[in-house]
């Protein structure tokens, strides 16, 4: 038998011994192991329950509120403000008044009229 086979054989023997000893543990030890396992399962359940403790509607509502708030802040800071320069206010008045527009249209006529009267 070569060294490798010898090694294989001894490992196999030890593995069988370990397996046999683990399978034949005393009932008291098995019971305590089972208790430890159930405790661990409860711990896992508790941990998970804590994680999902908030109702789903709160989670969804919270996300929606956060999204709306983000959009509101974004638009608040990014929408360019339209400033009306003071000098344009007069133009604005001119543009909104129909009579004055007519006046400016006929401006050349009034100038001619004035020149004619002055000429008299």
């Amino acid at each position, binding site marked *: 038998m070569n060294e490798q086979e010898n090694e294989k054989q*001894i490992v196999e023997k*030890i593995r069988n011994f370990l397996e046999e000893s*683990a399978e*034949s543990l005393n009932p008291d030890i098995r019971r*305590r192991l089972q208790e430890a*396992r159930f*405790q661990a399962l409860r711990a*896992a359940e508790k*941990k*998970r329950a804590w994680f999902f403790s908030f109702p789903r509607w709160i989670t969804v509502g919270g996300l929606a509120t956060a999204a709306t708030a983000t959009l509101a802040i974004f638009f608040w800071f990014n929408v360019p403000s339209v400033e009306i320069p003071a000098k344009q206010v007069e133009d604005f008045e001119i543009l909104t008044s129909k009579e004055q527009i007519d006046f400016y249209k006929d401006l050349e006529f009034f100038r001619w009229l004035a020149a004619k009267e002055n000429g008299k």
Partner: protein
Amino acid sequence: MGFPLDSKESLNRFLANVERRALRMAQFASRNSDAALDLVQEAMMKFSERYATRPEGEWRVLFYRVLQSRIIDWHRRSTVRNRIFGWLGRGYEEEGESDPIERVADSKTPGPFEKILQSEAGAAMEKAIRALPLRQRQAFLLRAWEGLDIAQTAAVMGCSEGSIKTHYSRAVSTLRTLLEDFAYE
């Protein structure tokens, strides 16, 4: 929302499958059944809390990683304790430091476990495995018994694959020498 039933069952099955081997590994390290049970319980708790939601395929490596780290912590604590008692001038012998095989021999009605350990070959193998240095024993038990490959064993023990090969081959060599008389039985 509770723990899904199928996840709970899978976790229960997994822990039931590894618990006895885990206990034996902890017994080899601590030489004390109560300490070994505590170590396995701590490992199960920590594993379930932290890794139960990870894919099942990763469970074995993660569980043994937690267990091995508990065992190493236990070793460090007992080494420090022994040193302190040594300085104080009196030897401190942990309850578990006495050889369980000797305690087993006092048992009035030996169960199957005791019978295995009391047999000549069983006692020799138990003693030989205990005689291995901690890291060699861990590498041997994880590779030869738990069936982890070199990469998985390295992940469990937190060292390189090369170290695992060295630990394992030294462990096998020592065991072969110590158990020479039983090799051809």
